């Protein structure tokens, strides 16, 4: 594999070309990181505009409902498809999975490079939708008939999903083959890092479910531009078909984001507690794989008010509630890993600790939403909006940021910790709470999602205050997050070049990416000697 890794060594090749044409999994990982952080920045800006618009009754910031809707569309689609999924399965898996299993690169480095190119093409296509006259305004879900009837350019949405879908499928095949065939000699399945397991599970989900999404949006394209009637009831189609296909992928996609985030959390907590993962096999088999097994039979909970037959809504109530079983086992392992640990605090561990809280709030507020009778009211309110932001946006993004701090010395040879890191963490943590708690409260009283105005509720008081007051608090929270994120981004860039130099294994981890390579690892990762592990080795063996 060594020969494929990089073109470094040909001194004549300029640096930009070396990056662009690289097949080295680490550089590809960094490219995913840069791309997904760029998407995060733009989509975050959209979030600020949305929050500023909702701050007061009436229209202040945007010029039309359609413009507001295209900002909403971009925020959702970019955060999920271009930030969270590529950030977790693109960046983190690319950079660290081969290192963790002792591989010199992924199984198919050129396909890996092609995946990242597709991802960048998708980002460019998504950004182009800002300069075309009819930007897509169909939300990230793209439900017909609206997405077919609208004058907005649905094709941009469809082709962006196609490109990202291809990218993910190729990545999935690549990483599954890598984990199956390129593990270091001696490394058994029960010796893998939890992060490797969660990534494998995420890629299995991508491989199984993406084709369904691709089919769903392709039929949408046909309906809009070729005059077919898959989703048109007036000609024998069915509008609910799309929603079923869409969520058949998009619910598992939640776990494509959630699982690697949990994996990162396990790595940080086990390393910083210098402790073995509590009940490793339970976390992996009934936990991670239990989630995978159930993920494909719960999608109707996104359709509780869509007019599906009663029997299937009740059936999916039971399966949805049962998700708490594998998640509960995972959570117990996560908590148990702290038990009798020797915890060191740094920025990564602060993010990890805050993730425990975000996971609890995000997970537990989902329980009412598992019940169709509760969801009849809560659906499409800002309660739902706050719930999935806690679990997807906040928990997963905080896990990713924690992971960046954790692996920063590995990627750059320098620490990103420091006063700025600590301060920006607290800004972010306080900001997300100030933003999303008010939305839970007014959501329960009926504040709808996706509204730029809520004048009809001006007489509804919650705890003596109108919705407007809660929106004001939430907008202040969004401003706090924005300041925190800007400081954090500056800190990452500054630390990458001028941060305090770190030793090879600054956290005294037992995991291969820390023990067997320099920081940052060179081409081929492990120098001249191949990694071999014995049967007693595990990445969490601190207390022999």
């Amino acid at each position, binding site marked *: 594999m060594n020969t494929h890794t990089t073109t470094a060594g040909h001194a004549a090749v300029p640096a930009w070309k070396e990056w662009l044409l690289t097949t080295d999994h680490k550089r590809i990982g960094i490219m995913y990181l840069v791309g997904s952080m760029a998407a995060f920045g733009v989509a975050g800006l959209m979030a600020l505009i949305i929050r500023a618009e909702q701050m007061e009754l009436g229209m202040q910031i945007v010029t039309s409902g*359609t413009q507001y809707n295209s900002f909403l569309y971009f925020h959702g689609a970019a955060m999920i498809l271009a930030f969270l999924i590529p950030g977790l399965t693109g960046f983190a898996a690319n950079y660290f999975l081969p290192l963790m299993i002792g591989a010199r690169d992924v199984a198919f480095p050129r396909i890996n490079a092609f995946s990242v190119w597709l991802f960048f093409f998708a980002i460019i296509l998504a950004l182009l939708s800002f300069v075309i006259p009819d930007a897509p305004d169909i939300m990230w879900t793209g439900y017909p008939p609206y997405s077919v009837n609208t004058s907005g350019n649905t094709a941009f949405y469809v082709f962006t999903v196609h490109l990202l879908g291809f990218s993910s499928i190729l990545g999935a095949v690549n990483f599954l083959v890598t984990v199956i065939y390129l593990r270091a000699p001696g490394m058994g399945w029960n010796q893998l890092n939890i992060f490797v397991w969660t990534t494998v599970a995420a890629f299995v989900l991508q491989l199984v479910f993406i084709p369904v999404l691709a089919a769903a949006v392709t039929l949408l394209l046909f309906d809009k531009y070729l005059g077919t009637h898959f989703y048109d009831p007036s000609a024998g189609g069915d509008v609910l078909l799309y929603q079923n296909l869409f969520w058949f992928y998009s619910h598992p996609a939640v776990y494509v984001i959630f699982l690697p985030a949990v994996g990162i959390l396990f790595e940080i907590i086990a390393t910083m507690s210098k402790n073995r993962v509590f009940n490793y096999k339970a976390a992996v088999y009934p936990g991670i794989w239990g989630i995978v097994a159930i993920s494909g039979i719960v999608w109707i909970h996104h359709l509780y008010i869509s007019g599906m037959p009663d029997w299937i809504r009740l059936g999916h109530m039971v399966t949805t509630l049962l998700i708490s079983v594998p998640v509960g086992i995972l959570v117990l392992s996560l908590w148990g890993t702290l038990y009798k640990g020797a915890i060191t605090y740094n920025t990564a561990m602060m993010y990890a600790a805050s993730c425990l809280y975000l996971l609890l709030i995000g997970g537990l507020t989902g329980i009412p939403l598992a019940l169709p009778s509760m969801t009849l009211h809560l659906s499409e309110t800002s309660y739902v909006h706050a719930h999935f932001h806690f679990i997807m946006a906040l928990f997963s993004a905080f896990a990713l940021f924690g992971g960046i701090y954790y692996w920063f010395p590995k990627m750059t040879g320098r620490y990103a910790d420091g006063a700025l890191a600590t301060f920006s963490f607290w800004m972010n943590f306080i900001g997300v709470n100030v933003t999303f708690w008010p939305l839970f409260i007014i959501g329960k009283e009926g504040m709808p999602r*996706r509204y730029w105005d809520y004048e009809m509720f001006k007489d509804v008081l919650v705890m003596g205050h109108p919705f407007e007051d809660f929106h004001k608090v939430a907008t202040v929270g969004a401003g706090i997050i924005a300041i925190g994120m800007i400081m954090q981004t500056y800190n990452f860039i500054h630390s990458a070049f001028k941060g305090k130099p770190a030793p090879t294994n600054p956290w005294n981890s037992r995991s291969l990416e820390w023990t067997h390579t320099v920081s940052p690892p060179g081409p081929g990762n492990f120098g001249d000697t191949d990694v071999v592990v014995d049967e007693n080795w595990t990445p969490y063996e601190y207390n022999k």
Partner: protein
Amino acid sequence: MRKLLSAMTGLAGAALASGQALAQEIRNPAEEWEHLWDEVMMDITIIGVIMTIAAIVMLIKYRATSPDQVGTAKKLTTVQSISFALIPAAVFMADDFYLAANGWTVWNAYRRVPENAMEVKVTAYQWYFEFEYPDGTVADGLLGDDDLPKPILVPQGQPVVFRMYSEDVLHSFGLPYYRVKEDIMPGRITYVWINTEEAQTDAVLQCAEFCGENHSKMSNPIHVVPQDEFEAWLAKTAAEG
């Protein structure tokens, strides 16, 4: 086996019978919703508080005192490993089935329309609702002379079922006051019913499924008023229409 089957049929029959008995009295779904909400909140608060306290205690108690210190958790025995998977699984499953049973009961209140309900046909358009009463009177939900969405009236005392259909894109019939919501779409008829025992002028109908530019403006007050007031309004609406 046969015994088990007959027991199951018996149980199912009993469940059906009790369901029918319940359908005859007019339930109040919004009230039952609030009750279930309180129950679920209690449930998740207990879990949340236990887990939060456990996390905080461990995060403080197990701080490292020196950089070389390592965690001292023992490797679990097989019995311990299995127990630590099965016990939480059993606890969560028990809680799940408890919640599912309660959720199902409230679900029946929402979905079983009382037999004496008055039927109002709702047609949704981008971006307004239209209401057709049993006598054929049509009330549109457009803006009134005061530039505000016109209130839609229904009579007090008789349950009202809205049978809904869309002429263009997806919409949703959301009534936070009654804790209920259901999508409206072309190709299928959906329904929502409300208990109108109490008169009120606070309920706001809103579109709750994204439907385009004026999605945020698709709304009408829904008032429950005494029978005579309703009839006067209906006659006036018919005359104007």
